[in-house]
């Protein structure tokens, strides 16, 4: 799937990937992550990152961003 810089890549992890799919391409420019999460009806979010860096849910998304939506983590 050609990454369109006009779009935001949304990646889900853990059990959220089972529920929402591993990866989506959306037009979410200018939206906050909170808005997007509500639109996508995503629950059980533990951590968020944009382009590999942790961000709060009120961060605003830009074209070309990669948003990672993560459920509670549990390594070890």
């Amino acid at each position, binding site marked *: 799937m050609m990454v369109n810089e006009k779009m935001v890549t949304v*990646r889900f*992890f*853990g*059990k959220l990937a*089972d529920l929402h799919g591993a990866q989506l391409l959306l037009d979410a420019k200018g939206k906050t992550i909170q808005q997007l999460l509500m639109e996508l009806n995503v629950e059980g979010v533990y*951590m968020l*990152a944009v382009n*590999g*860096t*942790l961000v709060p849910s009120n961060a605003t998304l830009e074209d070309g961003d990669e948003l*990672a939506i*993560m*459920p509670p*983590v*549990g*390594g*070890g």
Partner: protein
Amino acid sequence: MEKAILTKEELELPVLEDHAMGSFIVFQGKVRSHSQNGEVEAIEYSAYEELALSQLEKIIREVEEKYRVTVYAAHRIGRLTVGETALVVATLSPHRQEGFLATMEVIDRIKNEVPIWKKEILTDGRAVWL
């Protein structure tokens, strides 16, 4: 020597040497044959690798500063069968007290801050996110 490692390969035990240090502690977290869900065959570890590695490096850096110790931590991802080692944390320190505190803190922080997830594969075929 790399001190924060995320790999699909079998984990090796680090050899940390420093004659000023009197305590060397190595913790290994292994896949157990049983859990509250039943008999386990394997665990599939997945990670958001980019962030997982930077979080691991951050935890090591902060704990090293806090306790003035040397810390090594390696987490394995992919499918691990029962008995295999998923996590190694090693700490070199002047005395055992700060060595144990640092090791325990690193493990706790890894389990809370590093984006890694476990899916338990049970012998009856079920797969359960932990």
